[in-house]
């Protein structure tokens, strides 16, 4: 019986695993949209820019709460910020190991925290510019600009990383962030 079951499950090649819940997906794309709107389209001195900035801050805040109470793959414990794990992952990559991670891979996890922190820093410096104490203060404005540059680089790296990992592991990550399901190729173990 076991051998038959193994044979058939091996033949039923790809399997779908629900990974990203709807809240994670909504927050992800809303955050992407607000970064795009604020970075590329809205007048930096206008009210809409301010509002979208606060929304982005709220989105990250909500995601952080969801990472403590949400389902398994959305939790901090599924993608701990660990440089050691990221290094090990990188070494495995260089050695040609194509492992699949159900949540973020260790490198991706670092990028996630980096982007969240950058957005928070953008929000905080942006808010400071509206206060009387820090209005027109040079270092706050500079910080807002520098962090924005850093955020742009991060987003570019994030997109490149997604493209690379989709090709490398054979799991279409963009599709996973849209439908919520990762399509795991047959006979592959996951972490």
């Amino acid at each position: 019986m076991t051998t038959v079951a193994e044979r058939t499950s091996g033949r039923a090649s790809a399997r779908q695993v629900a990974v990203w819940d709807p809240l994670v997906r909504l927050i992800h794309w809303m955050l992407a949209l607000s970064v795009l709107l604020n970075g590329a389209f809205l007048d930096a001195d206008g009210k809409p820019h301010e509002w979208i900035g606060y929304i982005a801050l709220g989105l990250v805040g909500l995601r952080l709460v969801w990472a403590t109470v949400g389902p398994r793959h959305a939790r901090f414990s599924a993608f701990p910020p660990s440089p050691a794990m990221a290094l090990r992952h990188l070494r495995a990559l260089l050695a040609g190991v194509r492992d699949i991670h159900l949540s973020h891979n260790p490198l991706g996890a670092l990028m996630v925290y980096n982007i969240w922190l950058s957005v928070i820093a953008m929000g905080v410096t942006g808010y400071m510019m509206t206060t009387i104490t820090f209005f027109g203060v040079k270092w706050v404005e500079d910080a807002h600009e520098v962090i924005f540059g850093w955020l742009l680089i991060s987003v570019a790296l994030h997109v490149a990383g997604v493209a690379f990992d989709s090709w490398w592991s054979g799991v279409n990550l963009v599709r996973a962030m849209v439908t919520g399901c990762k399509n795991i190729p047959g006979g592959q173990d996951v972490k």
Partner: protein
Amino acid sequence: MTLRLWPVKTKERRATVLAGLILLQALCALFFVSDVVEDFRLDGKLDNPHLALETVAAFALISGVVFLMVELRALLSRMSNMQTGLDIAHGQLAGVIEEFFDDWHLTAAERDVALMILKGLDNDSIARVRKTAPGTVRAQATSVYAKSRTEGRAQFISLFIEELLAGSDHPDDGVRKLS
């Protein structure tokens, strides 16, 4: 191969709606909280009714968000349990089918045809999929029925349904986990 039962679909929609509500309500909560903080900063006192009302609204919204989050998490875990049950049933059924096919000594072509019959394809469609003449498929199907000692399509399919229904009598059956 993607078997979709309707409860899964409605649950998915429910989860999406819940997530949207959480997001909207959390942003509203953020608005009220920052409004309260801003008013307090400008005004310096907490005792006017307007501010009190806003504070209550902010608390109500925040507890609403927390409640919806708990609800969404419970829903998601129910969905994942259901999926696990389906996966187990999937694997078991595939195993049962293979065992039957082995017992009947079906040839590779007959296995293919038999599986497509089980999936509900008619002879013409099977012929198209396998790129053979309809007559060949008819002959293969007849052979499958003969080897399985059934009298045609309906009886052939019901063999497996019967096996599944009877299967729940076994004490240690994976299908049990469905309940």
